């Protein structure tokens, strides 16, 4: 809090950048990049988030503590997803007994 007053122009420029990225991500969806469609979509979303966090939420001027808290939040979310995924990704490494095949857990195609 008690942050410096940012010129209106900066906010408008950031907003225009966000609009540009939204149009970009929509456009990219119509080009076949294979698995990189997902990568591109997430990378663009991440950049948009950074713009909002740094400029609109003012983290540019925030204390280190606020930054650590924010990073910790995303880090813990990443832990949740990564460790859970580690189970699903490796489940099919151990083949199920033949007798289970009719009710085998779903595996990735």
């Amino acid at each position, binding site marked *: *809090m*008690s*942050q410096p*007053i*940012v010129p*209106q122009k900066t*906010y*408008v420029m*950031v*907003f225009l950048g*966000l*609009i540009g990225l*939204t*149009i970009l*991500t*929509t456009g*990219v*969806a*119509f*080009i*076949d*990049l294979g698995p990189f*469609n*997902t990568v591109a*979509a*997430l990378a*663009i*979303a991440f950049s*948009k*988030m950074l713009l*909002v*966090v740094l*400029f*609109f*939420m003012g983290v540019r001027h*925030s204390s280190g*503590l*606020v930054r650590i*808290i*924010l990073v*910790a*939040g*995303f880090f*813990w*979310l990443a832990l*949740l*997803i990564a460790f*859970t*995924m580690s189970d*699903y990704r490796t489940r099919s490494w151990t083949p199920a007994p033949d007798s289970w095949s009719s009710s085998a857990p*779903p595996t*990735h*195609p």
Partner: protein
Amino acid sequence: MTDAEAHAQHAGLAHQFEDLDQQQDADALGIWLFLVTEIMFFGGLFASYAIYRWLYFPAFQGGSHILDIRLGAANTIILLGSSLTMVLSVRSAQVGNRRALILFLVATMILGGIFLGVKAYEYNQKFVEHVVPSLDWAPEGQTLARLAPGGLEHAQMYFVFYFAMTGLHAIHMIIGMGLLLWLVFRARKNDFTPHYFAPVEVVGLYWHFVDIVWIFLFPLLYLIGGRY
């Protein structure tokens, strides 16, 4: 300055704090911690989504292609616009421009309202297309042809996530609009000064967070696997 003097000087200073700086620091830390709990709250949903999307990618892709990408993109821009007016209202409070503060708060509410209106229209479309899990699930014709390759069961799961994620997001929007209304009333009573506008800032941070959730929901729900 003694305790009593400090408290007499600022009506906004609560008794447990020594001075306004300490109070503002505590408020800021509090709202950021709250936003972290929100990250984890939505995060559980995002994690489940990630697992099932990976397991049942064709079904999720089929479900995604039922959605209207133009409406999704338009809504993204509307919500980003509301974030701009929100940040401008915080700035107006900072410089002590009460008229502009109220104006931008109302503009934020209007944009939020338009977003919810578009969302409501989209929800209605899902009933028209009979792709509402459990309540109205009977896709046919073109819709069925799109969903069938991935398996109807798993396509239904995609729509469960669609409604759970956008629904929770919409609830957060509605709460945010209530908070904005409260801010408008307080601003009209002239509660905010360039020295004390923490509530505007706190609600602003919340509003931007809700915006960020949508920034991720848009590609995750509308843009699965591309539209080529």
